[in-house]
């Protein structure tokens, strides 16, 4: 066992390596922002502005300074939460992101919950009945999940369940005339409508969320169940399982109390990774379902050539992604009794 002090030292290493990763992310987005063929000045002043107006904005944006200086300014302003102005909303990108992020978070959270609730039991069953039918079902679910284009599945689902069968509501977060009915408190419409006690809005929001959440949930399920299976297989092969069985523990108790409990730590990291993946996967799903989240924001900004907004969104999602990674890593190393510190 490593001492607590060593562990804390390890955490510090992790923090610094995360910082380096985030700096790398900033460097990449800066680089992308610089090579993009869209003239940022033109986006602001429009096509018919005079040369003087053009030059003024050029200087205001600091485009005349050396690249290193520009990068330094870029990083320091990022740290201040200044992501620049979005050309297509004329607002600070950060304000936009705060507006759009809750919708994505809500969708991804529900997606990952679906993934956990269905995926973990499926993975456990597949590990327990290895090479039997539960294992085969899981294999098919996983293969399909890894092979089907999510945007296409979304379109097909919309066609079938919204257009043909009319079981669920279509694109958007709530019906047009339910918009702005409940006050925006948390940004998550389900919670907000419950807080306001408006069940009509709540039901409408659920019906809108069903398809995109199930689709994201499916992708999360494919990943979580596969990982649960392999983690469980490892645990079920351990000696302590045999010991438990010999002691006469019931099969249910062996699987649930012993194996699954020990697998739990690893599963947390799996779930954290899956959550990060969903935040990213929401780009295409939100586009299909006109979901007013970060993904849709990035997509529509992309179409408008609004690189500040695209890169701001990329940095936000990327940062959350990196932090989730780090968090799960740290958690794993701190909680897992077998892990031996952090070393390189």
């Amino acid at each position, binding site marked *: 066992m490593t001492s607590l002090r060593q562990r804390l030292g390890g955490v510090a290493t992790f923090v610094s*390596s995360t910082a*380096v*990763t985030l700096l*790398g*992310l900033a460097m*990449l*987005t800066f680089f*992308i*922002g610089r*090579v*993009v*063929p869209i003239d940022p000045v033109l986006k602001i002043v429009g096509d018919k502005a005079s040369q003087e107006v053009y030059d003024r904005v050029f200087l205001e944006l600091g485009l005349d300074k050396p690249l290193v200086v520009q990068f330094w300014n870029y990083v320091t302003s990022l740290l201040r939460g200044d992501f620049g102005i979005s050309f297509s909303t004329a607002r600070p990108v950060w304000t936009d992101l705060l507006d759009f992020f809750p919708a994505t978070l809500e969708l991804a959270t529900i997606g990952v919950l679906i993934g956990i609730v269905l995926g973990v039991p499926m993975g456990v069953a597949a590990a327990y009945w290895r090479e039997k039918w539960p294992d085969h079902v899981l294999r098919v679910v996983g*293969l*399909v999940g*890894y*092979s*089907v*284009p*999510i*945007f*296409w*599945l979304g*379109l*097909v689902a*919309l*066609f079938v369940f919204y*257009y043909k069968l009319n079981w669920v509501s279509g694109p958007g977060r709530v019906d047009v005339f339910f918009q702005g009915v409940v006050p925006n408190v948390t940004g998550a419409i389900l919670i907000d409508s419950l807080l306001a006690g408006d069940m009509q809005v709540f039901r409408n929001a659920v019906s809108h969320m069903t398809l995109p959440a199930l689709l994201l949930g499916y992708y999360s399920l494919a990943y979580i169940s596969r990982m649960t299976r392999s983690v469980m297989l490892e645990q079920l092969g351990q000696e302590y399982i045999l010991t438990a069985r010999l002691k006469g523990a019931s099969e249910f108790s062996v699987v649930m109390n012993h194996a699954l409990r020990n697998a739990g730590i690893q599963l947390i990291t799996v779930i954290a990774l899956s959550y*990060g*993946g969903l*935040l*990213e*996967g929401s*780009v*295409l799903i939100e*586009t*299909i379902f006109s979901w007013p989240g970060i993904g849709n924001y*990035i*997509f529509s900004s*992309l*179409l408008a050539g609004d*690189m500040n907004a*695209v*890169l701001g*969104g*990329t940095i936000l*999602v*990327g940062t959350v*992604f*990196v932090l989730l*990674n780090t968090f799960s890593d740290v958690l794993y190393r701190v909680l897992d009794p077998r892990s031996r510190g952090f070393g390189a």
Partner: protein
Amino acid sequence: MTATPAVAPDLRSARLREWRSFARRFLRNPLGVIGLLIIVALLLCALFAPWLATHNPYQTSLPDRLSAPSAAYWLGADELGRDIYSRIIYGSRLTLLIVALVVVTSAPIGLIVGVVAGNYGGWIDRIFMRVTDVFLAIPKLLLALAFVAALGPGIVNAALAITLTAWPPYARLARAETLLIRNADYVNAVRLAGASEWRIMVLHIVPMCMSSVIVRMTFDMAGIILTAAGLGFIGLGAQPPLPEWGAMISTGRKFIFDQWWIATAPGFAIFIVSLGFNLLGDALRDLLDPHLRQRR
């Protein structure tokens, strides 16, 4: 297969035997065989597209715009009256092109980074691996999206963007293999004989990394195809009139409620092909991954 008569135990026949046993084990895995068949079918489609297609994939026929599937148009016609079936057949060439472009760029980049880092160690290793980690830690699709938005749309740029996100796993893999090999006796022997480090890396280490890189590559192909289709769907991939499958779905999206067949067929094509690569990758991994081989 009958056993080969015992000839001189030279290297070639040993390799041949290994291949045969490999093939036998592979054939026992029906899913892997299905995957292989799908990929062979894809290759044949691409190769014999002019003979398989019923129409010129670029020939517009405005009066037939949005026709439903029929004897003339097996899978219907698109928004310019072009035959969807023929476009899907020709689209297989583009899919292969993207996959090939990504593979021939990302695998060598990953190999070079990984082998150099593993072989030299020290600060080179630390810098290279830190860069690799940064790329690994950033969401792939978003990175590709931002890159191709910057480079401008197009099939080559899309492939480049995917490459930029696809090379890090190869670097990790190659580094791990290199660490195992670099001090092996035969490598040290070559080194003592006075060979340069570059010569050692190119002639002795890289070839040893190839097999695990190839397995990993097969597995990645499905992901590459899906990402490329996603970029095409967003409009950042192949440009008109190229029959890229993702772009075809994007067109069909406008007509999804009334002319659902326009988006359906190319979606199926993507699904089947990436399923094929996944099945093959699964099977190859089961066969080649020593860790898994033990377990089974």
